[in-house]
C-alpha cells in the first residue's frame, strides 16, 4: 500500500464511519477499499474438498479472480498397473476408480473386453439383468453419497446422516451378492461371478421403498430450504455450449440442458427394455445438478424394479471355454479342465489383437474404456476416459467471479471422485 493510503486510512475510516451513521448504509458500498490479490491455498487435505485436490486461488477480498486446480494427489497408476495384470486381475483396479459406484466401473470394463473378444452378444440374459440391477444400485449409492456430503458441507448434517442410513441398507444388499460392501469386483468377463441369493428380490424391493421415503424426507428438508436455495441457486452456472465443447456428460451435463444419456442414446446391456426418463435441467447451476441427481435416483429405482420383474433364469457366465473357468467338479477330476483352469488364470484370457473404445453411463457421465490389445493375456494399454476429469476441468472457467464460499457447493455438486479423476 502506498503512503497516501496509509496516512489516510485512520482518518478516512473514522470519517467514513461517521458518514455512514449520518447518511445511512448505502455509503459503505461507495467506499473504495484497497485490496491486493492474495494467493490462497485450499487443500490437498481440506474438509470441504470431496476428493483430495488442491486449489490455488487468487482472491481479491472474497472474490476469486483466478483458480489453478491441481489434481493428481491420488494418482495410483491404473494404466501402468493394468499393463502388468491379466484382464481379470484388472477388475479390482476398476473398482477403485469411481469408488462410490464400483459396480458401474466393473460393468463398463467388462463390456469393453467382451467387445474385443466379440462375445458381447452372447452374454446370458440373466447376467445382463444382474449387471443392470447392481449397476443401478451403485448409481443410487453414488448419488446418495454426493448429495449427503454436499448437504453436510453446507451445514445440513441431518441430511447426511439420513442418506448414509439409506446407503447402509444398499451396502448390506451388495454385500449379500458380492461379499464386499464397497469394492466388489463382482463382474467377470463373460458375465458375473455369482448369482443373486434367495429372497434377494423381496429384500431389494423393500429397501427401495424405504429409500424412497428417505429421499422424500431429505427433499422436504432441502428443496424449499431458504439457506440451501440461496447457496445453490444461480451459482456455478455452466452453459450448454460449454458443456458440449468441454466434453461434460452425466448429471452435470444434463443439468445444463444437454440431453445425452448413454443408456438412452446408445443402449447397452438390456437398457432398451426398460421404461425410464432422463432428467434434464435448464439453468446449469448447482441446484439443477442437485435436482438432476435426486431425479436420477428415482429413475434408477424404477429401472431396478422393472429389472426384478423381467429377470429370466439361466446361466450367469457365458459358456465359452476361452473365457470362463471350468466347473470345480471338472477341474478336480479331469486333467484337461485343470489345464484349462490353469491357463485362464495364469496366462489370462487371450484377447485377439485390436483396439476398442467402449462407453457406458457411470455415476458422473460417460465412462469410456479404450483398450489396446496385442493378443496376449495382458492389455498393451487400458485407458479409462474419466467423466469427472472433464467435469472438474470446466471449473477453471466457472469459478473465477464466484466467492470463496461458493466453491464448496459447486465442487460438491460436480462430484469429483479422486480415484476416477486421477486414476
Amino acid at each position, binding site marked *: 500500500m502506498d503512503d497516501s493510503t496509509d496516512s489516510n486510512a485512520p482518518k478516512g475510516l473514522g470519517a467514513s464511519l461517521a458518514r455512514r451513521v449520518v447518511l445511512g448504509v448505502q455509503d459503505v458500498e461507495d467506499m473504495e477499499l484497497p485490496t491486493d490479490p492474495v494467493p490462497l491455498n485450499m487443500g490437498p487435505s481440506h474438509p470441504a474438498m470431496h476428493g483430495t485436490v488442491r486449489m490455488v486461488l487468487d482472491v481479491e477480498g472474497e472474490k476469486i479472480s483466478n483458480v489453478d486446480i491441481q489434481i*493428481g494427489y491420488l494418482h495410483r497408476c491404473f494404466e501402468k498397473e493394468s499393463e502388468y495384470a491379466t484382464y481379470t486381475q484388472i477388475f479390482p483396479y476398476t473398482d477403485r476408480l469411481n469408488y462410490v459406484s464400483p459396480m458401474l466401473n466393473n460393468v463398463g470394463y467388462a463390456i469393453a473386453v467382451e467387445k474385443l473378444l466379440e462375445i458381447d452378444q452372447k452374454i446370458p440374459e440373466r447376467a445382463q439383468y444382474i449387471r443392470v440391477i447392481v449397476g443401478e444400485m451403485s448409481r443410487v449409492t453414488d448419488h446418495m453419497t454426493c448429495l449427503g456430503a454436499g448437504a453436510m458441507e453446507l451445514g445440513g448434517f441431518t441430511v447426511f446422516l439420513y442418506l448414509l442410513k439409506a446407503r447402509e441398507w444398499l451396502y448390506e444388499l451388495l454385500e449379500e451378492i458380492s461379499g464386499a460392501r464397497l469394492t466388489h469386483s463382482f463382474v467377470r468377463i463373460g458375465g458375473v461371478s455369482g448369482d443373486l441369493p434367495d429372497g434377494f428380490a423381496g429384500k431389494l424391493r423393500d429397501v427401495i421403498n424405504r429409500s424412497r421415503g428417505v429421499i422424500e424426507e431429505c427433499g422436504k428438508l432441502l428443496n424449499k430450504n431458504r439457506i440451501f436455495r440461496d447457496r445453490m441457486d444461480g451459482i456455478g452456472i455452466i452453459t450448454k455450449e460449454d458443456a458440449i465443447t468441454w*466434453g461434460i456428460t452425466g448429471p452435470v451435463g444434463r443439468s445444463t440442458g444437454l440431453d445425452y444419456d448413454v443408456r438412452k442414446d446408445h443402449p447397452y446391456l438390456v437398457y432398451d427394455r426398460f421404461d425410464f426418463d432422463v432428467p434434464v435441467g435448464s439453468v446449469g447451476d448447482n441446484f439443477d445438478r442437485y435436482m438432476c441427481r435426486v431425479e436420477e435416483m428415482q429413475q434408477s429405482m424404477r429401472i431396478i424394479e422393472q429389472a426384478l420383474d423381467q429377470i429370466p433364469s439361466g446361466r450367469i457366465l457365458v459358456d465359452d471355454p476361452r473365457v470362463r473357468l471350468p466347473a470345480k467338479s471338472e477341474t478336480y477330476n479331469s486333467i484337461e479342465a485343470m489345464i484349462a483352469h490353469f491357463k485362464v488364470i495364469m496366462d489370462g484370457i487371450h484377447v485377439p489383437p485390436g483396439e476398442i473404445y467402449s462407453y457406458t453411463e457411470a455415476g458422473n457421465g460417460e465412462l469410456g474404456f479404450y483398450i489396446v490389445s496385442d493378443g496376449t493375456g495382458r492389455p498393451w494399454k487400458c485407458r479409462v476416459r474419466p467423466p469427472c476429469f472433464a467435469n472438474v476441468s470446466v471449473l477453471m472457467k466457472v469459478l473465477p467471479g464466484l466467492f470463496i464460499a461458493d466453491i464448496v457447493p459447486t465442487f460438491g455438486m460436480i462430484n469429483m471422485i479422486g480415484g476416477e479423476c486421477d486414476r
Partner: protein
Amino acid sequence: MAQIILDRLAAEFPRGEIEQIGSQHGNEWARVRRDAWLQVCTFLRDDPTLQMQMPIDLTAVDRLGREPRFDVVLHLYSVTKKHRVRLYAGVPEEDCMLDSAVGIWPGLNWFEREAYDLYGVRFRGHPDLRRILMYPEFVGHPLRKDYPKEKRQPLVRRSGIPGSPE
C-alpha cells in the same frame, strides 16, 4: 454406422492427409498425417453433416518398436448426429510435438496436459502445458514402456525401504 464420417474425410482430404481409415468392432477410425491435424479437426467440427462438437478423450499410445513411436488418439462425438470417430496421429520420439486442438475444443486442455505428463508428447500452442497428475519435480514420463513400474522418486526422504532409491 459412422461410415459417413470416413467418406466425408476421404472426399475432403484427397491429398494424403488421411493416411488410413478403417472400422473395427463398431469403431470407425482414421489415421491423420501429423501436419494436417488441425485442418482435419476443424473440418470435423465445422462441417454441417458431421458436427463433431464434443471432444471425448485424447490420449497417447506408446507403440514401442514401431516408427513413429507414439500415436496420439483423439475420440470425438457429435451430440446432434450421435456418431463417433477416432483419430490417430503418429508422433515420432525425436520430434515429439503435435499441434494443440485446445483452440477447437477447449475441453482438451487437461487431456493434452495429461498426455504430455505421462507420455512426453508436447502440444504446440497449448496455453498451459505442464504436468497435471505427477508433481513438478518428477523426472521422466511414467507411462512410456521403458519407464519401470516401481521406480519411485520420493519427495519425502526415507531410507532403507525396499523400492526407494537410497
